[in-house]
């Protein structure tokens, strides 16, 4: 079966709910490109995930244009992870946060030598942000600055 077309379905849903239309990003120019310059087994990996993951003890995300970021130490106890988000069914993420924040498989891949290591901290936020300007001018630069400060060799991005 063909992949689900989400843009028309979500557009219809927003209309039905009386929300203003969501502005999807359409980029027709070629994306930037930075080649990986070492084998994965030598790479330290950074991660940003938009599934609304936070750690108990941190302030949770709110549902009105929240573009804040949480730092999650990569030695976190998986049992301390929580999920909150307005736009997807949270039941599986609350059962096992690895479905949107793959911390356990990534730690395992480091132990197995497939990856060289992980950043000290991963970044989480809550997707479904209305304003592409706030993403490109505020959120994305903040995330990039954290990855540069950590000196990671590659970044995995996990949306919902």
């Amino acid at each position: 079966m063909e992949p689900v077309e989400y843009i028309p379905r979500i557009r219809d849903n927003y209309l039905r709910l009386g929300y203003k239309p969501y502005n999807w990003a359409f980029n027709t120019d070629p994306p930037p490109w930075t080649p990986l310059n070492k084998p994965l087994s030598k790479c330290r990996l950074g991660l940003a995930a938009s599934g609304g993951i936070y750690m108990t003890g941190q302030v949770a995300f709110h549902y009105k244009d929240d573009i804040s970021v949480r730092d999650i130490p990569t030695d976190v106890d998986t049992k301390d992870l929580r999920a909150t988000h307005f736009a997807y069914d949270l039941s599986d993420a609350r059962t096992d946060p690895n479905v949107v924040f793959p911390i356990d498989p990534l730690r395992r891949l480091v132990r197995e030598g497939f990856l060289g290591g992980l950043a000290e901290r991963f970044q989480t936020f809550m997707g479904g942000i209305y304003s592409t300007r706030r993403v490109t001018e505020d959120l994305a630069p903040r995330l990039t600055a954290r990855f540069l400060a950590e000196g990671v060799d590659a970044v995995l991005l996990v949306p919902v």
Partner: protein
Amino acid sequence: MGLVARHVEAAGIPTLCMTSALDITRAANPPRAAFLDFPLGHATGKPDEPELQRQILVDAISCLESMTAPGSINTLPFRWSEDEGWKPKAFAGGDDRLPRHDTPQYQDEEDRRRAEGVGPPACPVCPS
């Protein structure tokens, strides 16, 4: 997330985007993407299936080494279910989208107490 990927990549760090929404990712056009044809909210696997989660991550992260063309999208070889009965239902009729509260939405009350730095609620009958 495609916008974030383009920004990070432009700063000199290679990126790979997971995605379960192929049309959204095609539109945002990130440098590298791995498409997992699962319902939203499962971009890196099914709950409590560590072997599946590991294999998804191995296949996805390998794209960082194997892809050579900007804008590449690999479809990962995993299916959510044989009949794919979830697809017609995804976002098809109404949805359970939650109201846009502007206060923190905790998973549980214990999280709220910890974040606000207060102890457990006082026992209403014990002498203080």
